[in-house]
């Protein structure tokens, strides 16, 4: 499983980490070494498996007095349902709680790989994964808007209550911000956070090796660099949880915007 990063201990450390560091080699020992099964693929499958198995096991024999697993599963679901779905969308939000909870858990676990030893990279640092999640949210809020309001949804979403002479400017801006920037920013926010997090950790870890190899003056500073890595790992954990939350809250708020009556 440790591939790609094993070169770290070599004498020649490729110091400024680059985008190439995100393209990991294949991990199947047989066949041509293509890009079809890398650590990213494995981590994706693992996250899906972990989530499915965890929630199945935790809720297999539900008890009135929950045990630890059931308590954890229930408090995650309860958090998303009460604090995200119902708070943002209102009473109707309960309907969307299962999707939002799966979204939250999936993003959280996918992000968490970024700081778990030996995994150390989040699949979400490849934009393909956040993009698909953003497209799902995008299709969902547009579909909900049309199914709730019919063709009037276009007017609702694009024409804000404003004097007529300002509308030629406002309508394109609304269109741009509601239907183009929303999915794009959802995807880029998650991707760039994970990308930057991984990059930061790489800079400080590899920077430590680069300095210890450079000369005697710089060698002690490498310790500082590695201490920074540890501190940044904690920061990364905060960002991981925050981004999972933000993605879910924004999806909920877009759904709420589609379901709302008028402006």
């Amino acid at each position, binding site marked *: 499983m440790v591939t790609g990063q094993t070169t770290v201990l070599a004498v020649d450390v490729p110091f400024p980490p680059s985008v190439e560091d995100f393209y990991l080699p294949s991990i199947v020992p047989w066949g041509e070494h293509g890009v079809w099964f890398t650590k990213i693929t494995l981590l994706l499958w693992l996250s899906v498996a972990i989530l499915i198995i965890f929630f199945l096991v935790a809720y297999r024999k539900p008890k009135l007095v929950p045990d630890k697993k059931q308590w954890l599963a229930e408090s995650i679901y309860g958090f998303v349902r009460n604090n995200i779905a119902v708070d943002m969308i209102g009473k109707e939000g309960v309907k969307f709680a299962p999707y939002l909870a799966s979204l939250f858990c999936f993003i959280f676990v996918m992000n968490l790989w970024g700081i778990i030893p030996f995994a150390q990279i989040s699949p979400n640092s490849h934009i393909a994964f956040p993009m698909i999640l953003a497209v799902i949210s995008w299709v969902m809020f547009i579909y909900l808007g049309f199914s709730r309001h019919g063709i009037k949804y276009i007017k609702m979403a694009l024409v804000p209550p404003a004097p007529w002479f300002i509308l030629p400017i406002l309508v394109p801006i609304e269109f741009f911000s509601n239907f183009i920037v929303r999915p794009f920013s959802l995807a880029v*926010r998650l991707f760039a956070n994970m990308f930057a997090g991984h990059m930061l950790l790489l800079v400080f870890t590899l920077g430590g090796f680069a300095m210890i190899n450079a000369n005697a003056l710089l060698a002690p500073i490498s310790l500082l660099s590695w201490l920074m890595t540890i501190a940044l790992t904690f920061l990364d954990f905060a960002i991981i949880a925050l981004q999972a939350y933000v993605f879910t*809250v924004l999806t909920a*708020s877009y759904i709420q915007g589609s379901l709302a009556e008028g402006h």
Partner: protein
Amino acid sequence: MTLAEVVGSTAAIGYGLAAIGPGVGVGLVFAAYIQSTARQPESARITQPFLWIGFAVVEVLALLGIAFGFIWAGAPVTP
């Protein structure tokens, strides 16, 4: 003998400049939240989702800077 040299891309400077705006913006978002919470502590829970939405919307500007830095890294430079 060279004492020090700087190599690399000026994009780093550009990104540093570009991060000022979102930095100020994120600061304003949290400042407003702290102020509103200090004035009316019971509103903390109500305004919290808006805090994170505002934070996320502003923060994305800085993150776009990171993303576009890599997108345009290969673009030809015209003098």
